[in-house]
């Protein structure tokens, strides 16, 4: 038996595979298609203080080996999450990670306090980097703002904090370092790359929101590079790598680049069981290669 379990902050995951926030709903939607308990962790859609209706449609368009999305963080708000979604998730034996989004520090702190009190939530992923809402990127492009936000959150909760980084920056390491210095237990990367697409006959943007976030295999090389850069610079903070992971092969690239865990996002749209297939594939790879512990792979790439 190989060991597939990894640690992210105070959390122990039975395998390194999480779901990507916003690509797995609130878990309940997918609970018949796959066994949630077979996941390393279940990361739910970004939750905000008040309910949000999100952006007008069209919200997703297909691009080469990827999609652009501009959902705009549609969600039912924190009360709805705690009352309607969390009870279902508590029944499972899988770490629940709630992704938070707010306009200002106070929003995040409020959400963190509510979720800490609520019980049954194991970690918070801090979305400072959603490109699809106005000012959604203020924190992520500025190490100082990131530091302030995470410092405040660190005081507000003992839950494991995972700060989610944006790829739309010159220097992802500096933002990651600010989050780590402020007490984030882990970093997750990458969120989507800002992009657009145009309908040439209508001469209109194909997304109602004009721009959206690019995800899927198209962005994998960029995501993998950023994970490696951050791991080189900050080898002691666990990373959750994501961006274009479809297969166990993709996931193992991220582990080798320095990710302790990975998330499967857009791939779920094309294969409902992608996350657990990736987990099974990692285990198979370990067995085939005679590797006893998945932790041996983490950061093990050489030049």
């Amino acid at each position, binding site marked *: 038996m190989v060991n597939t379990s990894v640690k992210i902050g105070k959390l122990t995951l039975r395998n390194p595979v999480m779901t990507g926030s916003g690509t*797995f*709903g609130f878990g309940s939607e997918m609970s018949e298609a796959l066994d949630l308990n077979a996941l390393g962790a279940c990361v739910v859609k970004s939750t905000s203080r008040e309910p949000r209706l999100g952006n007008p449609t069209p919200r997703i368009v297909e691009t*080469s080996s990827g*999609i652009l*999305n501009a*959902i705009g963080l549609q969600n039912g708000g924190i009360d709805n999450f705690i009352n309607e979604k969390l009870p279902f998730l508590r029944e499972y034996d899988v770490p629940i990670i709630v992704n938070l989004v707010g306009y200002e520090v106070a929003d995040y702190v409020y959400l963190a306090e509510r979720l800490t009190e609520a019980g049954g939530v194991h970690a918070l992923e801090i979305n400072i980097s959603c490109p699809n809402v106005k000012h959604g990127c203020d924190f992520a492009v500025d190490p100082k703002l990131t530091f302030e936000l995470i410092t405040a959150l660190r005081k507000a909760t003992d839950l494991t904090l995972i700060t989610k980084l944006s790829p739309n920056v010159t220097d992802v390491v500096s933002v990651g370092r600010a989050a780590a210095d402020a007490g984030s237990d882990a970093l997750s990367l990458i969120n989507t790359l800002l992009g657009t697409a145009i309908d040439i006959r209508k001469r209109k943007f194909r997304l109602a929101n004009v721009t959206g976030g690019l995800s899927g295999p198209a962005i994998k090389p960029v995501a993998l590079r950023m994970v490696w850069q951050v791991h080189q610079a900050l080898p002691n903070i666990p990373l959750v790598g994501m961006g274009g992971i479809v297969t166990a092969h993709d996931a193992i690239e991220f582990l080798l680049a320095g990710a302790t865990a990975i998330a499967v996002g857009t791939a*779920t749209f094309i*294969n*409902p069981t992608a996350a657990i297939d990736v987990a099974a594939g990692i285990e198979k790879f370990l067995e085939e290669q005679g590797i006893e512990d998945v932790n041996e792979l983490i950061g093990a790439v050489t030049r």
Partner: protein
Amino acid sequence: MPVSAQQYLVPVISNDEIIADHRVLTCYAPEVAALARPGHFLNVSVGDGYDPFLRKPFSIYTVNRERGEISMLFSIVGATTRGMAKKRAGDEIDLVGPLGGKIFQPDTREGATHVMVGGGYGVPPLVFLSKELLSAAASTNIEFIIGARHKDLLLCEAELAEAGVTARMTTEDGSHGMRGRVTDALRVVLAELGASPVTVYCCGPTPMMHAVSDLCLEVDVPCQLSVEVGMPCGMGVCMACVVDLADGRRVRCCTDGPVFAAGEVKW
């Protein structure tokens, strides 16, 4: 509602052109056949690579539960449908399904007449619905209206005749059946049916559904619409397929629909 849909790689049994650029692809998918109900759809992928990247939704057209076969009727418009058109018997096709949260809900009132109104690839799910209703009770009252711009674009007339349903055809240029639109035929049918219990089931291009919906609201007849919007995931997790409802809610077409009542949808 959670999706029980699974991914299946299944063999193609046949793939025949029925009218220009429209084909029926039948495959052996017993698990899907067992679960499929009218209004359900499948999310299809034709390749083993990432181009095209997303699956595309197709209504289930025919189901043969004994033989474990299902079929889809599709019109060739882009990469997925071009790929489907190339599939030969023995090739494999990759399906996720059956998908759909709220699907057609047959009117169970005593003596109810089921009025189907379809256009384009909106016709197949209504053919499926009609056959299911007839197999539950052969005496079911069904009226079927099919509309198209021109007679060469009319679908499923023979298939329906075989099932014992005489469809009323409307064409915009009068090349077959009644000249006009489906709503013209629908007014006639509803007038004929008078005050007896009636439900209209509609699937087709959005402007057609909008018109049918307006007419049904006007004459106060219950109407179920199978709404079409792009569906990247089909499983309720991506939030791309949202539909604004008259009550202010913004819901997912894939799992909260795709069938909505006329009046429910904010056009």
